[in-house]
């Protein structure tokens, strides 16, 4: 910045702009509104003090933040940039509530699905067990009278004669 061209701050304060002006790098004459907001809310000496207390490499960011706060306050004289903080806090609360609700729905669906799968497995096991029982009972019933046509008396006599001689077939 050439010393013959004053920064917005020095122009507003109607003073000479020295080469080492603290405010000059951050309040160029091309943007007088930026300095006007800052001057109205914080005042020239406060801004200068705030920037002087900071290392040079942090002053640009600090000047941007101070300008943002000042213009927010000019726009909203009651709440300034604090209104944004409140709105964000409310958004966070709403999003958290919605997230908890959605995760609850997912957990419910997963539990339902698990239950259905377990029911299906139990039904399968029951079906297999039932089939096994049916086969067993068929075998049992078909072995009950292997000689349905044989004279029962003859069979008994045969058995008696085998055991009488002391040996069994």
């Amino acid at each position, binding site marked *: 910045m050439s010393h013959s061209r004053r920064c917005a701050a020095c122009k507003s304060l109607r003073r000479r702009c020295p080469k080492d002006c603290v405010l000059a790098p951050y309040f160029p004459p091309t943007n007088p509104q930026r300095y006007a907001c800052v001057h109205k809310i914080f*005042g020239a000496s406060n801004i200068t003090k705030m920037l002087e207390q900071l290392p040079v490499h942090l002053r640009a960011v600090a000047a941007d933040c101070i300008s943002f*706060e000042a213009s927010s*306050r000019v726009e909203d004289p009651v709440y300034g940039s*604090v*209104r944004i903080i*409140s709105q964000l806090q409310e958004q966070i609360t709403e999003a958290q509530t*919605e997230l908890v609700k959605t995760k609850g729905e*997912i957990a419910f669906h997963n539990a339902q699905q698990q239950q259905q799968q377990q029911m299906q497995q139990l039904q399968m096991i029951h079906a297999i067990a039932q089939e096994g029982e049916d086969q067993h009972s068929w075998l049992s019933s078909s072995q009950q009278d292997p000689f349905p046509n044989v004279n029962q008396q003859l069979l008994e006599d045969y058995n008696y004669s085998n055991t009488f001689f002391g040996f069994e077939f």
Partner: protein
Amino acid sequence: MGGNSPCASCKLLRRRCAKDCIFAPYFPSDDPHKFAIVHKVFGASNVSKMLQELPVHQRADAVSSLVYEANARARDPVYGCVGAISFLQNQVSQLQMQLAVAQAEILCIQMQQEPVMPTPQMDPDDKSSYLFHDSLPQYLNFSSSSNVIHDSFKRESIFGHDMVS
């Protein structure tokens, strides 16, 4: 405020506390720090001008927000309140992403349960859906990454009433 007991502002400024002192209702003498921090950041005359421009019923809230901003700037001389805004915006973004993932999962579950289904009907007026990240106002248009994360900003209730319109 009685004439015998100057408010915190007049005490600090070492002047007589008038009956109609503009600071007296908001800066009681039992809390000197409150005015001290506001005076340090904004300056007494600027605060006085700001309060005078406001209707009486809004001055208490204005003082609360000025105290909040001044404290933020005292804690973080570089970013001040903007650091808190940046931190909270990140939180909102993260939550919105988590919500989008969870909502997509719900949609998948619903589609699995009803495999023969037309394109899912999404109600554009459904305010419970947070899949509108593009509409989140971007308050900051410069990069700011504060190293000082203020836990108090997460849950601090600044005002006793709902101020968000």
